[in-house]
């Protein structure tokens, strides 16, 4: 039996090794913290349907290995992603310093229009914090990113992070800023009540006068 949804978005979870990318994904999908989670080798994949602005949106999430060495492989999965969670660890300055590189990769390889949400993970480890909320907000603002601090361990803000990013994409589709029909948009229509756009897209392809 297949799930019902209006849209399908391709999402990436990227950022340095050990920032908790897989745990965020696990917490989002299973609603629990994955104890004894191993570091990701290559790429893993998960999906979930979430309600966003009155629409059902299926998020197809690609969780990548964080070590620089594997970028040549993991980057091949970036193509056509509509959204990304860019993750750093609030207790590790080096993971914050690496953000600019990850962001440049996402924008150049996935899509210049990719909607990125900055995630400061491990917010439960307040006593070990090395990156303040304020400086991360500033980085987000300068780079036109949304921003949330999360804890994959407690679950705080995890669903919100994915939903907020998805919501921004839905808003951009509705305002016409994003065209789901553009190749490599990372957006597909689902099997629910086709919108006006998708209906015209379906006929558009076979209609010679539109070519």
């Amino acid at each position, binding site marked *: 039996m297949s799930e019902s949804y209006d849209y399908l978005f391709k999402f990436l979870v990227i950022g340095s090794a050990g920032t908790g990318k897989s745990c965020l994904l696990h917490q989002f999908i299973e609603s629990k913290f994955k104890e004894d989670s191993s570091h990701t080798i*290559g790429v893993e994949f998960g999906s979930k349907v979430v309600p966003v602005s009155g629409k059902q949106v299926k998020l197809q999430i690609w969780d990548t290995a964080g070590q620089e*060495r594997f970028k040549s492989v993991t980057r091949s999965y970036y193509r056509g992603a509509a959204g990304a969670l860019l993750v750093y660890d609030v207790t590790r300055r*080096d993971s914050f310093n690496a953000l600019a590189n990850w962001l440049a990769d996402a924008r150049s390889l996935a899509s210049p229009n990719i909607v990125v949400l900055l995630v400061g993970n491990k917010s439960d480890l307040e006593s070990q914090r090395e990156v303040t909320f304020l400086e991360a907000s500033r980085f987000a603002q300068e780079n036109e990113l949304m921003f949330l601090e999360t804890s994959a361990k407690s679950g705080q803000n995890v669903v919100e992070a994915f939903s907020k990013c998805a919501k921004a994409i839905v808003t951009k589709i509705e305002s016409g800023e994003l065209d789901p029909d553009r190749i490599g948009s990372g957006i597909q229509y689902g099997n629910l009540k086709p919108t006006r756009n998708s209906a015209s897209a379906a006929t558009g392809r076979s209609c010679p006068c539109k070519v």
Partner: protein
Amino acid sequence: MRGPPLSVEEWMRHANDDGTISRIESLLQTIFRGGIDHALRYDVWKYLLNYLPFRLNHTEAAELRRMKIKEYQTLCQQWQSFTPGQEERFSLFRDRKSLISKDVNRTDRTFEYFAGDRNPHLDSLNNILMSYMMYNFDLGYVQGMSDLLSPILMLMDNEPDAFWCFVGFMDRTMGNFMMEQTSMKEQLLQLACLLQILDPELANYLNAHESGNLFFCFRWLLVLFKREFSNEDIMIIWEVFWTGLPCPNFHLLFCIAILETEREQIMANDNGLSDILAHVNSLSMNIDRDAMLCKAEAMYLQLQANAEKLPKMACLTLGLAVSVDASAAEQEERFKDTHVTPSDDEDDAFEKAISYSFL
């Protein structure tokens, strides 16, 4: 088709009174057929992983081991004697140290051997990886290495022996971890080439569904199936691979055996990139070890019997004599050009010629 593991009795028949090991080929044959009795692994892995050469007598082996223990201690002292200031100015070292410590804390923690906080075995894992970084600084530490080390450390249960066995394993698999990932990419190409021969329908399906690069096999190859099998299974699988029998790159045929077993699932529901990756990752801990080893060997025997018809790349990969047959060379060219199956009659005949049955 699989045999019993190398037993103590058989091992004793290979071990001479002076400590040297003889009739290596038949020894490796037995290991290839059935792995090694667990009681013997502590001794035999040292030979399989080139820590101890088979030709050494008792005295020489003891002397070599003494020297190796000392060398390990030297390597340990090197990284342990970095001053804080020195570390502060040495970002490469610092980054590696930090990544090792992160990964040590998340390697096989579900195993009793590594479970719990302040487990001393985690320190050993850390010490060996730090020492390996000093031993091979050009390579350093790359994720996946701790997966390769973990079963070795559990078996050896002491740092210097585990370190040198790990060095032997890394000597074989180092390419997987190199900077440009050329070896990984080459293996994926070789895998695609073999799959095209052994299961053209599946290969074509994958090509048509954004998966022709077989990147979904990346984890299998990088850590040699460590994440896909239980510890008991992985020890046997690695022992089989370490024998080098029946051919070089047998692990690629092992990959194809799994893909071939899962072909219907992979091609079901018009699966694309994401479903294929999700399915392949979900196979972890649900793969029949012996069935796959048998299947992989059967594939090798079929390819060997038809070696003269194979493309050059396949022959080179599996250590088969390269055919000078022009049609095979032509086939190879077409494979390189298009990376999809040629489908004229001649090639259909070729596919039929090497199609095989296992039962």
